[in-house]
């Protein structure tokens, strides 16, 4: 009896972890691992139509690196990512610092207000801003008209498409990143500020020597997630620009380029190659970000 119990006991302890992770492993294998391997194989084929594919070796990659649209997509995506990191994140951090002050009246209301755009989702926001940016009759131009009598064609002028997208993304994502920063700020011990003040540190010194080191792990995480998210930009631009890359491909992003290649042109092989280049690119960027921010040194 005791032998049976001990076997059962051993079985429980040895099998339990595998049973717990089994659902994830099965789902991961079916929906991630298999497509991942399949896409890697497909990247070396041209696929045309339902069942035709031809092995082309590295030709998909060669074609991509000679295609001006690919460079346009990379340029647009990088500019958008820079806009996200250098405009969105400082705004998010500023809002978080502002709303972290205990004496600030109505701070819970503002925290919710700034975060709320994220709850609407990017498709809704894209439709909304698509209407707001309409020339002559759109609200943005009505506001601009108070100061300048110009009719700005936000989504028709190739030079203004990216700024319009960055502004929209700022409204959409600033609140979300603010929440991350807010959580990080609240974990910085108050005593450190008191000690810094005793030592004569002004607000800038307190930020540089107390706040920033305290929130750095979260900041690194937010920067990386924003960068990766920016490189995955698709639905916001796609909906805002009415299912197109915009005038003169001004809103063409890497994912849009991938989508068009795979699902509009029907070349899943080329689309897979684009996907792998994007993955490798993101890996390299993330590595450098971690290196620069010192996240790897720990």
């Amino acid at each position, binding site marked *: 009896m005791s032998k049976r119990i001990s076997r*059962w006991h051993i079985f*429980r302890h040895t099998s*339990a972890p595998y*049973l*717990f992770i089994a659902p994830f492993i099965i789902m991961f294998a079916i929906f991630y691992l298999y497509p991942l391997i399949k896409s890697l194989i497909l990247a070396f084929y*041209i696929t*045309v*139509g*339902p*069942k*035709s594919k*031809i092995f082309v070796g590295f030709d998909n990659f060669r*074609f991509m690196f000679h295609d*001006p*649209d690919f460079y346009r997509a990379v340029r647009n995506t990088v500019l958008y990512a820079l806009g996200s990191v250098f405009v969105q994140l400082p705004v998010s951090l500023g809002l978080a610092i502002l709303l972290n002050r205990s004496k600030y009246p109505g701070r819970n209301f503002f925290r919710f207000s700034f975060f709320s755009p994220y709850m609407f989702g990017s498709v809704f926001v894209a*439709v909304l801003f*698509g*209407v707001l*940016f*309409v*020339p*002559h*009759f*759109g609200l943005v131009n009505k506001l601009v008209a108070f100061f300048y009598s110009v*009719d700005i*064609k936000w*989504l*028709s*002028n*190739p030079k203004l498409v990216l700024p319009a997208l960055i502004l929209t993304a700022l409204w959409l994502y600033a609140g979300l990143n603010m929440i991350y920063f807010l959580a990080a700020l609240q974990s910085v011990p108050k005593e450190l500020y008191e000690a810094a003040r005793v030592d004569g540190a002004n607000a800038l010194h307190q930020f540089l020597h107390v706040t920033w080191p305290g929130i750095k792990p979260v900041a690194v995480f937010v920067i990386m997630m924003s960068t990766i998210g920016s490189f995955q930009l698709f639905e916001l631009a796609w909906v*805002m*620009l*009415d*299912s*197109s*890359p915009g*005038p*003169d*491909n001004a809103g063409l992003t890497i994912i849009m380029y991938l989508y*068009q290649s795979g*699902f*509009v*042109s*029907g*070349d*899943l092989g080329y689309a897979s190659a684009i996907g792998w280049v994007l993955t490798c690119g993101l890996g390299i960027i993330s590595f450098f970000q971690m290196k620069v921010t010192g996240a790897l040194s720990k």
Partner: protein
Amino acid sequence: MIIFPFGKAPAVILVAALLAGGWLLLHPRGKEDANLVLWSFAKTHITAYNQALPALNHAYPDVKLSVKQIHFEALNRRLLSSFWSDLPSQPDLVEIEISCVGTYFKGPKEQIGFEDLKPRLVESGMYNRIVRNRLATWSNRGGIYGIPNDVHPVMLAYRRDIADSLGICVDSLYTWDRFIEAGRRFTVEGERYMIELNEQNVGSLECFLFQRGGGYFDSLGNVIFDNPVAVATMEWFVPLVTGKGRIGADLGSGQNAAVLFYKALEEGYYLFFICPDWRSSFIQEYSPRLAGKMALMPMPAFYPGGRRTSTQGGTMMAITKACKDKDKAWKTALFLYTNPEGRSRSFKKTNIIPPFRDAWTEPVFHEPNAFWSGQKLGEMYIGLADSIPPQYSNPFVVLAKGKLSQALVSCTQYYSVNGSSGFRDHIRKALTASADEVRKYQKRGLIE
């Protein structure tokens, strides 16, 4: 007391899963008794088909049709994926829009997921009843893969009340030269434009390109949007939307701008706009305040006696190769597109004229329309239907539109800086560069 070996939480999850699974097992989804499934993206079509179901069942008791509305993007993605993967979840009948039909024609001919309907069209006599140029859109390498739902001839719609008050005699605007001359007199920059024209996307430009007999591809699939017709059209078009002599403007393109287009129209921001038959019903629906203030006229020609229409948009009904009973699907498709009651109902709702010539004598197409100042809208569009230019579909048409758009932007920028000096050369270079990009993709992507 029974103790679950892995703790309480997994026990709860297991119980919840068993309960949910058991419930689903005991309440299976009602099996559809339909023997044909039709997918469509157009709400107005769906409404018309559902209304026609009793008559369909009466005419063909063996047909049990299930009509499903699926979002435009989702329909195409699901259908393409089904074709590519040989999934069984394909409909028997499906409506496909003109902008994406080319994608279905990629690859070897025998792998096109739709049934070639040409033999059936010829055998049934439908082939000679349909506007011939309309079949071009749905044809590929000798096959015809759908029954056209429409012709979509284009006219110019205008604010009749404003035109009258300004003393514009629309009958005298029978050539574009005359139209532009009038436009320069009546356009007030930033306040009122003679015509709504897309400045950066190719929506308007391609309409004029087709009117002049040009296009993106010829019937053999060769890229032609850098030919002399395209160069001349671009040279003619750009000054209409750029510089001091401009007569056209837009509010951007697509759904976002469409929301405010009706407001702009009501405020008299535009006097004229390009209006295929389908768009006329949108104006009726979204700008009811303009009832009796609007009118239609044929497009001006590029030269006296020239073509006075173009074409924009389109839908076909196809039978998938996966359909098990193609005869049943064929007679259902024909019934939905040709039964007079359904057609009459559909026209009253959508203003879309059918592509079947023999249907044009039906009274509904000759009734005056109070919204359009009492004009016989159907009759006017029918009068132009046989003149529509052919529009050839191609797997690379989306790419070609994007490349033409790039050339348009380049030409617009050049013209706004340099005016007409060296403009034609620049157009040639820009169009050739864009067309070569498409040829590059074409060369690479063809597996015959």
